[in-house]
């Protein structure tokens, strides 16, 4: 069987890639994608911990399902906000949204 640590390293890598995307991308949609990657890495973590821990305890699975649901809600709101910004300003590049500074 694949050892647990492989899953954890995979999740950590996924999280780091997502974070890199969030910090380096300028397009709002790409930033949202990065956030999704981070949330999915959490799901990998949770599922792996559940499988390698006490399998009769459903906590890990339930947690993962709730994370799915919340992530879906968050992206729905996120895309709506992106659209509302795009309608006003004709751009979704984060750097150009700088009406308010200091």
């Amino acid at each position, binding site marked *: 069987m694949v050892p647990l640590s492989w899953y954890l390293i995979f999740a950590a890598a996924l999280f780091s890639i997502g*974070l890199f995307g969030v910090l380096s991308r300028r397009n709002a949609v790409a930033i949202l994608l990065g956030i999704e990657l981070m949330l999915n890495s959490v799901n990998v*973590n949770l599922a792996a911990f559940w499988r390698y821990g006490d399998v009769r305890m459903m906590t*890990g699975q339930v*947690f993962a399902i709730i994370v799915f649901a*919340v992530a879906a809600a968050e992206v729905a709101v996120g895309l*709506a906000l992106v659209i*509302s910004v795009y309608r006003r300003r004709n751009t979704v590049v984060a750097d150009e949204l700088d009406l308010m500074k200091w």
Partner: protein
Amino acid sequence: MFTSTMFASILPEILILVLGILILIVEPFWKEEKRRNVGWLTTGGLLAAMVVSFLFARPGEPTATLGGMVRFDWLGFFFKMLFMFAGAATALLFMDNEKIGHRGEAYLLLLASLLGMNLMAVSADLVMLYLSIETTSIPLYILSGFMLADDKSTEAGFKYLLFGAMTSAFMLYGFSLVFGFTGTTDLYELAELFKAGNLPLTAALGVLALILVGLGFKTSFVPFHFWAPDVYEGAPTPVSGFLSTASKAAGFAVLVRLFFVAFPDFGVSWTVTLAIVAAVTMTVGNLLTLQQTNIKRLLAYSSIAHAGYTLIGVVALSQLGATSVVFYLAAYILTNLLAFGIVMAFSRVTGLEDIKDYAGLSRRSPWLALMMLAAFLSLAGMPPFGGFVAKVFVFAAGVEAGYVWLVFVGIVNSIVGVYYYLNVLKYVYLYRMPNEDEENLPIPLTRPYAIALTVLAVGVILIGTVFAPWFSWSGAAALNLF
């Protein structure tokens, strides 16, 4: 299976939900110009819910209900009452804001986030905690970007969402690691496991750092404060008021419960970290406030500084510390809501938001100026207002726990704070409007504003003069943590 204790433990949330559904049903039948009455309904409903909960759903001995998801105790109950009061006041302040006051959705979103905050205050399980934090945040993202025709508002909602989603992913990663290390998500079981030494110190510190990112965002302490000024400036002003008070207090409620209940055994390591964070937060918040010219941004940066003062109570990790945090948040919610309410009432009539626009306010509207005096002196920490007593207790807790240097930093910072708060009052009381007769330019208050501001101002004075009952309630609430 569903016992009366379970029912009582979530009675306020059930009532809020019922109220929300009621608004959804009633609002479409009202005519466009009567829609703002939803605000009366929301406020009345929330106050009724508070009374009903107080009569029938008072907690006794702390118990875990709903499968360990919810902790039914005085700490949670006290916070719930605070949040619902803040929600009721915010609903009144919504009413005469023509951008959002005529839309039933705004009140519904307010109630949805209030539901999440109430659950944040009582959740005793990481799953519940995450769910309630997101239930709070997502409606607030929408409310911040609610004014679709306003460039600043859409930008504020957008920034708030991106920052919030990223930091909550950090916190969630921390939660998943806690679950992995211990095999449980129950906060009280976690405490037992940590006592048995199941978690190495380095792992605990890593996890705590991840969780602190998420909570640092909610309570806006440095270095996770970048969103706060932008969002407070751009969002509709009543929403900014709600964000800076109830949402921040909810973050502190979680912080206190999580750290005092689940992680006290790693206390030495995280209190030092948090002490440094508190000192930096106060200093950075205050120094950045000094150069603000927009009143909403001034309040935003000063609310960052206030998060720093409150953190001193958390750092103390003692009973007095917890009590002082609860008390500070109660005083801060009243004071800051009052300050934002005055800003709203002023800019509704004048459309202006700069500090220099407040020149001559004492002649244009003496009562409004007087309430502004109460709010800003309370924020600055002057007797006889709530902010003074709250600061004294927080500093006392810090000294008692041996953090004299931190309290020293806090006192120096509150002196800096006095400068910029008095600077605003200087415009209000000493300066005149150039070439205008102020008597002819009054600032009329509509009834919802008058009621909300009067209640808040009286509250600010009461909490600062008759503070013994407030303090003993905070003490009773804090006792549940130990």
